């Protein structure tokens, strides 16, 4: 299991390599990148802040929950950036390997969906005329 919260660029190819296994015929991966717009506003860059210890603990827990739900899951990798990211930068990578493909899609989607609900990481979007903490207010 590869779990990482990092202020360095994520090497996606290395992550995909890490989840490959001779018994796994399927690798599904999700890459979240920084978009140039959000709810109609032009985004200049993003700032990610994390509660480091809890974020790593919760990332690991999400990966473990996926392994419990999909016991055939062979390898799991979840990596998340923190700090300042520019448009196109990779913010998060989830990659899983399973013997067959349906479970690889389901497990990968479960991990990214759950990550976004429980892992204490916050992003502040920077526009040309200000900043907003995403999803903070109703």
């Amino acid at each position, binding site marked *: 299991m590869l779990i990482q919260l990092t202020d360095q660029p994520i090497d996606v190819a290395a992550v995909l390599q890490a989840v490959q296994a001779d018994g796994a015929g399927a690798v599904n991966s999700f890459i979240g990148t920084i978009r140039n717009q959000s709810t109609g506003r032009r985004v200049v860059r993003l700032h990610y802040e994390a509660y480091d210890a*809890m974020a790593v603990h919760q990332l690991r827990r999400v990966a473990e929950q996926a392994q419990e739900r999909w016991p055939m899951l062979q390898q799991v990798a979840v990596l998340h950036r923190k700090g300042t990211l520019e448009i196109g930068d990779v913010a998060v990578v989830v990659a899983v390997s399973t013997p067959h493909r349906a479970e690889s899609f389901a497990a990968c989607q479960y991990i990214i969906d759950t990550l976004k609900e*429980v892992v204490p990481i916050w992003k502040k979007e920077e526009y040309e005329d200000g900043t907003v*903490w995403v999803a903070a207010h109703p």
Partner: protein
Amino acid sequence: MNLSIALFGITREIVGAPTLEVALQPGQSVQQLLEQLHQTYPALGELRSLAVAVNNEYAPADALLQERDEIALIPPVSGG
């Protein structure tokens, strides 16, 4: 008891500091801590949600706090 509460994201900006020292009666709950903080910082009440983490886990409202706990406020997360 004196608690040191870690702040992140918008709660850090609302309070204006990365940690907050709070004096509470021993045996107070998460719920009571939140009520006290909402009185001091009304802007916390405008957030979509506000959770409390104790020792890296989300704590239920009735969880009792202890002085050596690692406590943090968790505003709506937005990772990914």
